[in-house]
């Protein structure tokens, strides 16, 4: 007889465990397989579109497919396409995102972020898009961003959708606004609802939208109100027209404010360019035609710094200011020592000599660097705008340059008024013989003063490199304006230079929309000529004994 089969309790337990394990394993495999299946579907989507994405004729279609898909990575893909980071690997038609590395690209698969190593520029082809597609991508991304956890992104998204609302989008936004926690975003969402109601709502909705929008200066609101003000319904037309009038009144006030700001900004550029000349020409009396080239050298210092240390652009300007000052200060001293020193009291010869120096400097930059303009990048903290109202915003770089101009001016004032060096400079310029008799080394002071003027011009060059192009000719653009500002302000008076620069800037900007840029410039010049006829010493004439000389 066989003994009855007895199961060892221990074994039993083991068996149970094994069963459990098998079940778990099955589940896991199933789950994993399921996962894998979903994943590969996503894989297939982007990679199956590779062919279409590569061809300019079908890329729009492919993007539509991505937008309407349910892939959770579509936002990332669309963003990469928009930023020009999505490529197709030519060897196997795999869609990859790239990061630029030395002489090539580092690839990773778009489908699952798997690292795919390096590739040369010719191994991959970029997915190319045009303006139409960029607009489409932005619209699609805005819709996705509506549920972004970052409130700023949501705000941007709603703002972007304002002008392109249809019923579906408006409904989606109004649903979201009920649960929106951020007050700014909520306000924007309500605004979107009103804007939509203006066009598509019933009469009551339209009227309440007009009332709730109030005096809103967004251009889309004005456009819609314009349409409504021609409406057949008298109530709506009247309400829209009334609202529109208020809006236009406010916009016109903002426009005047804007013009003043533009003028101050142009004025600060003019003053900035002229301050150096206010010292060499104003204080020392040297007709310095090479002043513009000092500005150019300062700008080239900025370029040189960015060129030598490419990863340093964010801080390059901060370093460029002392560098440009030092370089142009030294160049100024050398020019003074070699040329100007020998020509004091002979203004005509000084004019010709400095004009020669200016040509010499221009051509040497052309020969040594390149006749082409050089690229100077703007650091990110200098780009963008400060929005005060939809109809009024200030560019950050303009604002920074304005305050930088004021700061340079203050430092210079302090240097001339409060330091011993400044005292000697003023003494020598007012009465050379007497200053020498009192022990001031006039020749050294002259060199230092000219160097200072040149150095300030160099610093101006750093600031101007952010606004305009940097090339061998850039100095030429500023020389006439600089003389104009210094003469108008009153030769020898720094305050005069600042005020003259600012007021000429504002005058120019008020004239420009009225008569056009060309005539505005002529009118300003004519005005200065007439002004100088009446007041030959400018806005703020030098007073006292020195004024006679």
């Amino acid at each position, binding site marked *: 007889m066989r003994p009855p089969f007895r199961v060892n309790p221990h074994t039993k337990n083991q068996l149970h465990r094994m069963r459990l394990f098998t079940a778990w394993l099955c589940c896991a495999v199933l789950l994993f397989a399921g996962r894998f299946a979903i994943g590969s579907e996503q894989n297939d989507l982007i990679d199956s579109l590779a062919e279409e994405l590569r061809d300019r004729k079908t890329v729009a279609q492919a993007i539509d497919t991505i937008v309407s898909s349910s892939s959770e990575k579509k936002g990332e893909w669309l963003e990469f396409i928009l930023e020009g980071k999505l490529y197709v690997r030519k060897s196997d038609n795999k869609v990859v995102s790239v990061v630029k590395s030395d002489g090539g690209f580092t690839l990773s698969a778009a489908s699952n972020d798997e690292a795919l190593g390096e590739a040369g520029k010719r191994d991959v082809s970029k997915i190319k898009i045009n303006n139409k597609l960029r607009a489409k991508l932005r619209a699609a991304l805005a819709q996705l961003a509506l549920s972004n956890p970052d409130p700023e992104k949501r705000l941007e998204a709603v703002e972007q959708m304002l002008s392109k609302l249809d019923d579906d989008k408006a409904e989606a936004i109004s649903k979201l606004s009920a649960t929106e926690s951020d007050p700014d975003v909520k306000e924007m969402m309500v605004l979107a609802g009103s804007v939509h109601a203006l066009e598509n709502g019933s009469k009551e909705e339209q009227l309440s939208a007009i009332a709730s929008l109030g005096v809103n200066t967004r251009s889309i609101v004005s*456009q819609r109100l314009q349409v409504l003000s021609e409406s057949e319904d008298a109530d709506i037309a009247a309400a829209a027209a009334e609202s529109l009038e208020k809006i236009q009144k406010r916009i016109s006030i903002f426009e005047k404010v804007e013009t003043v700001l533009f003028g101050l900004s142009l004025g600060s550029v003019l003053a900035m360019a002229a301050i150096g000349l206010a010292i060499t020409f104003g204080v020392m009396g040297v007709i310095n035609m090479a002043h513009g080239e000092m500005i150019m050298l300062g700008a080239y210092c900025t370029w040189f710094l960015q060129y030598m240390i490419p990863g340093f652009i964010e801080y390059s300007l901060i370093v460029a200011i002392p560098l440009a000052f030092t370089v142009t200060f030294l160049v100024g001293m050398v020019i003074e020592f070699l040329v100007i020193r020998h020509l004091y009291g002979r203004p005509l010869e000084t004019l010709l000599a400095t004009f020669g120096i200016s040509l010499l400097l221009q051509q040497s930059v052309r020969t040594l660097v390149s006749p082409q303009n050089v690229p100077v990048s703007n650091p990110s903290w200098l780009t963008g705008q400060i929005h005060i109202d939809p109809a009024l915003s200030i560019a950050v770089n*303009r604002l920074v340059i304005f305050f930088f101009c004021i700061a340079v001016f203050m430092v210079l004032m302090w240097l001339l008024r409060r330091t011993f060096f400044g005292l000697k400079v003023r003494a020598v310029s007012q009465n050379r013989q007497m200053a020498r008799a009192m022990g001031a080394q006039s020749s050294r002071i002259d060199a230092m003063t000219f160097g200072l003027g040149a150095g300030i011009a160099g610093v101006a060059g750093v600031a101007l490199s952010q606004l305009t192009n940097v090339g061998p000719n850039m100095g030429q653009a500023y020389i006439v304006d600089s003389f104009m500002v210094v003469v108008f302000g009153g030769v020898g008076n720094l305050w005069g230079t600042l005020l003259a620069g600012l007021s000429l800037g504002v005058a120019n900007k008020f004239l420009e929309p009225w008569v056009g840029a060309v005539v505005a410039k002529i009118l300003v010049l004519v005005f200065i000529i007439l002004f100088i006829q009446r007041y030959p010493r400018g806005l703020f004439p030098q007073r006292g004994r020195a004024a006679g000389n």
Partner: protein
Amino acid sequence: MKVKGLIAGSIAAGTLFAAQLAHAEDPIKVGVLHSLSGTMAISETTLKDTMLMLVEQQNAKGGLLGRDLEAVVVDPASDWPLFAEKARELIEVEKVDAVFGAWTSVSRKSVLPVFEELDSILFYPVQYEGEESSKNVFYTGAAPNQQAIPAVDYLADEIGVERWVLAGTDYVYPRTTNKILEAYLKDSGVAEEDIMINYTPFGHSDWQSIVSSIKKFGSEGKKTAVVSTINGDANVPFYKELGNQDVSAEDIPVVAFSVGEDELSGIDTAPLVGHLAAWNYFMSVDTPENDEFIGNWLKFIGNDERVSNDPMEAHYIGFNMWVKAVEKAGTTEPSAVQDAIIGVEVPNLTGGTSTMLKNHHITKPVLIGEIQDDGQFDVVWETEDLVPGDAWSDFLPDSKDIISDWLPPISCGNYNTVTKACSGQNY
């Protein structure tokens, strides 16, 4: 005085005789008249180098008519009257057989009388305002119908633009081009208030109020575009200000006729992406001819960062046409070449064949490109066929009946088809 004159005369005759004797072994001289200093050096230096490269390549191929070519380079220094003096020097003193040069319209107008008086040949490689056709000039750049008109068509048909800002620098090329464009737009039904015209001085650097007014003009509901004939250095601050005021290419695209690869190489192009340019050639065009040309150019100039651009292609086409015409005529004699060159066909760099027409303009394709973040253009649209250059615009009332035809029996650059008369004006 008389004795002096006699001596001078005999010396001159002697030199002439000696020159004639030596002529057989002498290289064929080609003049290069591009500014190497002054404001235009930025654009023209590249063309001087292009010419040197083309001459070098031709010599490597065995020269022309069994003789070597020699490039004679002079520097007119961006000084318009000096252009005329230097042109005279090239033709009379250096005895060149053809001149390749000039960039601005005013420099071309300045040398024109010299070329007509001495009956020499000028190849002019830059897009220009038209309304001219000289017996002695071959215009290898675009006429307005090969650049401006197709660009406007593209914006209207493909982008749906309804409002137009015509912004330009205040001189002859933008003024004439804008006059033609205005007439063309009005013909196609655009209302007066939907066109805004703005001129700025050379080197204008403060664009704040203009960009602000363009922005306002574009915010009134209709799709707006800027057609820019802004010249040279003024472009950089213009584009920077567009970026400053958040005007993107998707809202208000700017299509430029004077911004090419060379100009972009001096700018941080990030804020420009998506803005447009209309040319007959882009460096990014993918053809074997262009690959070869760029390869040769980079090797010749010894700098991998350099770019090629439209006027360079124009010189490439013009030089090859001249070479073919000289071979056809069997001589470098300018008057024989002037006759032989009409009808000459050479391959251009965009995959087609350009022909010298009887009005001294050539056939070219028109391409619209979008600026990319690497400073290159991506072609988004091109004409199906090559467009023949039209010297006298059909859209201006003064010139719509005028044609240019340098073949007999007309042989006139300014022929009125209604009155059947040549105006007598040579250009």
